[in-house]
């Protein structure tokens, strides 16, 4: 286990160094802060997404789900589409990234709050599969409404929108980074008192209750943590669905453990490797002719098919 983590740490450090220093051309005071900010954004989103996916997969007891099934990124796209559809691409909310970020985060967290509240209103059995089903239906609904608006708007404005459909680290704002860091740290501190329950929850509801976990209470709080982290990550860089699926499963395969303290740390490191490595390839190999999420979704998709085939065989 130690050796595996050493490997991951070394790769992360090498990639960060490579990303920071490669081809800087001597303009250090210009290059370093810009690249450093990008790296910080990637570390932040990578961690948030890896972490929430691992927790979400444990709660649902399913290794091919990602929190995107809750419909949060569809809601984000709907909001972005709506802004451009209703106000055009030149108004304050569509150009000022700070306001856009804050409204998006508030909207997504508010949505999950209302959504959970309604579903968990009934005491006792919180039916997680019902939650997923509703999330999926709402997500599809948001997607349909977005595409309806997309076909109506001006093609030039649609190009503006298209930028937001793919996660991008190229113009991350410093203020937003600070807000996100504060948010993520706050949530992480809140989460730490639940971490010990994750291993037991992966045994399933009945065993968890038998072993004294206040299951419904813990799962609800974990879902809130997942929703907040997903909201922050999505609003910061855009939807980046497959990353979580990819890194959570690679972490499972690579570490071969059920212990969440290792799984979470491992998937966060793998996630950072995927993002920084992917971004490096985008910038230096493809010279920005493609976006990072295209590469991640391509690798993620291929891996997903491999997973399905493998599960099918066993």
């Amino acid at each position, binding site marked *: 286990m130690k050796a595996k983590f050493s490997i991951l740490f070394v790769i992360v450090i090498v990639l960060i160094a490579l990303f920071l220093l490669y081809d800087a051309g001597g303009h250090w005071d210009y290059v370093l802060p810009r690249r450093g900010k990008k790296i910080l954004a990637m570390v932040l989103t990578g961690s948030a997404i890896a972490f929430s996916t691992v927790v979400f997969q444990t709660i649902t007891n399913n290794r091919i789900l990602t929190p995107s099934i809750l419909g949060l990124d569809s809601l984000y796209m709907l909001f972005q589409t709506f802004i451009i559809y209703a106000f055009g691409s030149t108004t304050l909310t569509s150009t000022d990234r700070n306001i856009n970020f804050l409204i998006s985060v508030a909207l997504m967290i508010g949505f999950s709050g209302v959504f959970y509240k309604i579903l968990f209103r009934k005491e006792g059995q919180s039916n997680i599969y019902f939650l997923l089903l509703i999330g999926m239906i709402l997500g599809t609904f948001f997607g349909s409404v977005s595409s309806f608006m997309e076909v109506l708007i001006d093609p030039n404005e649609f190009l503006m929108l298209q930028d937001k459909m793919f996660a991008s680290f190229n113009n991350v704002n410093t203020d937003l980074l600070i807000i996100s860091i504060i948010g993520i740290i706050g949530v992480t501190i809140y989460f730490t008192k639940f971490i*010990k329950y994750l291993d037991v929850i992966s045994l399933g509801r009945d065993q968890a209750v*038998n072993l*004294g976990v*206040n299951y419904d209470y813990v799962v609800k709080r974990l879902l809130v943590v997942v929703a907040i982290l997903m909201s922050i990550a999505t609003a910061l860089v855009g939807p980046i669905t497959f990353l979580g699926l990819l890194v959570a499963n690679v972490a499972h395969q690579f570490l071969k453990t059920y212990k969440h303290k290792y799984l979470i740390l491992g998937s966060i490191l793998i996630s950072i490797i995927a993002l920084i490595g992917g971004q490096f390839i985008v910038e230096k190999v493809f010279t920005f002719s493609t976006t990072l999420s295209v590469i991640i979704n391509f690798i993620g998709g291929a891996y997903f098919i491999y997973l399905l085939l493998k599960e099918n065989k066993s």
Partner: protein
Amino acid sequence: MIEVRNVSKQYAGKHVVDQVSLQITKGTITSFIGPNGAGKSTLLSMISRLITKDQGEILIEGRDISKIKSNDLAKQISILKQSNNINIRLTIKELVSFGRFPYSQGRLTAEDLQYVNDAIAYMDLEAIQDKYLDQLSGGQNQRAYIAMVIAQNTDYILLDEPLNNLDMKHSVQIMKVLRRMVDELGKTVIIVIHDINFASVYSDYIVALKDGRIIKEGATQDIIDRTVLQDVYGMAIHIENINDNKICVYFA
């Protein structure tokens, strides 16, 4: 002592368990018998707080289980359901270690490890303790789960059809272990069981349920009786005395 008072559970307007009251004496094996759909498993799940009850109260040592903290209750009562599908890959030892969670919260002390090793030894699993659960036979799997319950070290142990899918040899083995746990360790065991002869040979008390109600409860020799069983199962069952055990013959 566990005391169940007027407990009911409805699903979609239908009473699955209807105004059931009973008492479980400490240091005994009590079997719940009855036809399919009688509410046996539902009652067991309510006693172990896996599902909520609609009405009534359940007391353990005089305290209402809904008022006891879940973690404290996990040191008093444990339950093993009939299907245990877990998605993660565990060895026997790792599974049994989970039984110590109510005490250790995941950080095993030397004392916890002692309990784990004792439980593994008690179920005679030492030779295969590092094997993964998916490499085991049904009987070994069931023994591993029972070892986990033993490591949890609760006074009350509830088992939902522990003999499901086991062959004769393993069934007898499991029932003997349960009997030993009651006689040697002073545990109280409640099982839901379909094989009436295992209930007859190994249990002290039998509770017969039908349509969500208790038809009859009492000492084993009183329940394993032609007229009572006729009431419960709606079929004539012939009873023979073989080596001081009452054996039901119902196959033809």
